[in-house]
């Protein structure tokens, strides 16, 4: 407790307020002192404790603080900070207590704020600004007559005003320091935003053409920045120019593959293929579906077809359903003895499983096939009820 000394409440040259706390009680070692309900100020050089009724403060030089510990509060006690102190310098001015057994003090935070104060204190201790300042603040503070350069007033209303101003400046500095990292990023983003705005306006003028080269570059920039593509965002509903153009693109790209696949291709496969073809210009599944839905309207060479079960496929316009049915029946007849499952048909005709299943169900609806449900699964047979003479 003898490390505290009396001083006035002004800040010395180069001293900046770091944080403050209210309703602080000082402890000498583990014993309570009479210094309670005070205002504690942490600066980069010292700790200042002041009671409202007094004008002078108790100061503690931060250079004397060896270790800070936090003592969490319980049900009956408030959180405390324990400051282990070194021996005071002989030049230290007089304090409330001349000698003390304890080399540690406690600050009791009756109204909380202990942790944040602790952080501030740690920072001040690591910074050790008192080492940097050449001016000896401790002894000069004691002499209340000595003033730092300029006739600045520390007491009275002007003094309070000055303190407020100083605090504001401090806050501003803190904020700007915190955001310095972001400034560079903001500068970069500003350029990017300007570029994207110019390109998007150019694209708008060209009425949303989905051409490969410009749009690819543009989208790659946007993807790297995470900005939404304005062309897709503008579309509402499914019958817009974007989807029509997209439909045309998909039809052109996939006409041959669909024909090679037997005239029918699952929508999921269409999605994979078109994205693979585009490379950087990835389409969302929703866009692909919407584009396929308008294919019929825009008279493309392929269009969307939905089965009863909900499976969606893309079919060539000239697909001969009869031929498909005949092929299915022929395949069924090859499997007359044991029946054909969807898997068998898929393997036989090189179709995806879902498509094979749809074909069999279609054959059943046309009375070309009959089903056999058993514990072994669903199999299909040619419709012998019709073809063979029933008993």
């Amino acid at each position, binding site marked *: 407790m003898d490390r505290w000394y009396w001083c006035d409440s002004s800040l010395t040259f180069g001293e900046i307020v770091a944080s403050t706390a209210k309703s602080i009680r000082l402890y000498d070692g583990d014993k309570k002192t009479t210094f309670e309900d005070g205002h504690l100020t942490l600066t980069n050089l010292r700790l200042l404790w002041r009671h409202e009724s007094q004008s002078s403060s108790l100061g503690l030089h931060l250079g004397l603080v060896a270790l800070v510990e936090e003592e969490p509060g319980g049900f009956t006690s408030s959180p405390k900070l324990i400051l282990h102190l070194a021996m005071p310098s002989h030049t230290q001015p007089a304090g409330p207590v001349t000698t003390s057994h304890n080399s540690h003090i406690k600050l009791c935070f009756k109204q909380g704020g202990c942790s944040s104060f602790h952080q501030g204190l740690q920072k001040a201790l690591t910074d050790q600004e008192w080492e940097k300042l050449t001016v000896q603040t401790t002894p000069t503070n004691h002499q209340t007559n000595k003033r730092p350069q300029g006739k600045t007033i520390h007491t009275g209303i002007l003094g309070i005003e000055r303190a407020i101003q100083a605090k504001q400046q401090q806050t501003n500095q803190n904020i700007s320091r915190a955001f310095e990292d972001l400034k560079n990023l903001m500068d970069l983003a500003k350029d990017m935003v300007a570029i994207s705005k110019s390109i998007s306006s150019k694209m708008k003028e060209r009425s949303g053409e989905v051409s490969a080269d410009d749009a690819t570059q543009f989208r790659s920039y946007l993807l790297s920045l995470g900005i939404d593509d304005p062309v897709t965002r503008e579309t509402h509903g499914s019958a817009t120019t974007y989807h029509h153009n997209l439909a045309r693109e998909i039809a052109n790209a996939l006409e041959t593959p669909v024909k090679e696949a037997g005239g029918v291709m699952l929508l999921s496969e269409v999605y994979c293929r078109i994205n693979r073809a585009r490379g950087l210009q990835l389409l969302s599944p929703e866009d692909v579906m919407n584009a396929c839905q308008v294919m019929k309207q825009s008279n493309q060479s392929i269009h969307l077809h939905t089965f009863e079960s909900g499976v969606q496929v893309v079919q060539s316009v000239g697909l001969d359903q009869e031929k498909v049915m005949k092929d299915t029946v022929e395949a069924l007849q090859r499997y007359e003895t044991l*029946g054909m499952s969807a898997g068998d048909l898929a393997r036989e005709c090189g179709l995806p499983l879902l498509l094979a299943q749809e074909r069999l169900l279609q054959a*059943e*609806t046309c*009375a070309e096939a*009959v*089903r*056999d*449900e*058993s514990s072994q699964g669903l*199999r*299909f*047979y040619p*419709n*012998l*009820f*019709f073809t*063979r003479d*029933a*008993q």
Partner: protein
Amino acid sequence: MTEFEWPWQYSFPPFFTLQPNVDVRKTQLDAWCSLVLGWARKNNVGQIDVTGATSMAVFRNDSISRALPADGIRVVLDELAKRGNLEWTDKTKRRGYLFWRSVREWGQQIYQWAQDTSRINTVCTLFEINQGDETAGQEFHGLDGDILIKALKALEVAGKAELMDFGDNQGVKFL
């Protein structure tokens, strides 16, 4: 007694799955009805209990590991009832009499025989009709007694016969 000849459908696995296609189902049910009736006739099965039906030989073929499920059996029995070949004993439809030939048809046959043997306007005992020597060659020879009564009752409704009671004997007069 020769073994019952199973129809080709009996070895066709899809036969044991109720077909969803309406047209196919109709054909399937026709086949089922004739199968059940033929089998019942051959094996002299006069009654069907729905709960025990799944274990009946006619509704399963273990050689192809297939059996008609309970709901399928129900559909077949309902179809038989519709055609007059099945008569439920009670409202809960748990048990029924199976007539491989419908009661009406039996009645008609018996009446035909009565006409052929000029028994019109005479009285016969029921014993004579289904057990007597004179009916030895007829199909209804050996017919179940209850079914015979039903058949005669059907004739009665048609106004072609009249049932009579002679104490411990029962008889019928053909009109």
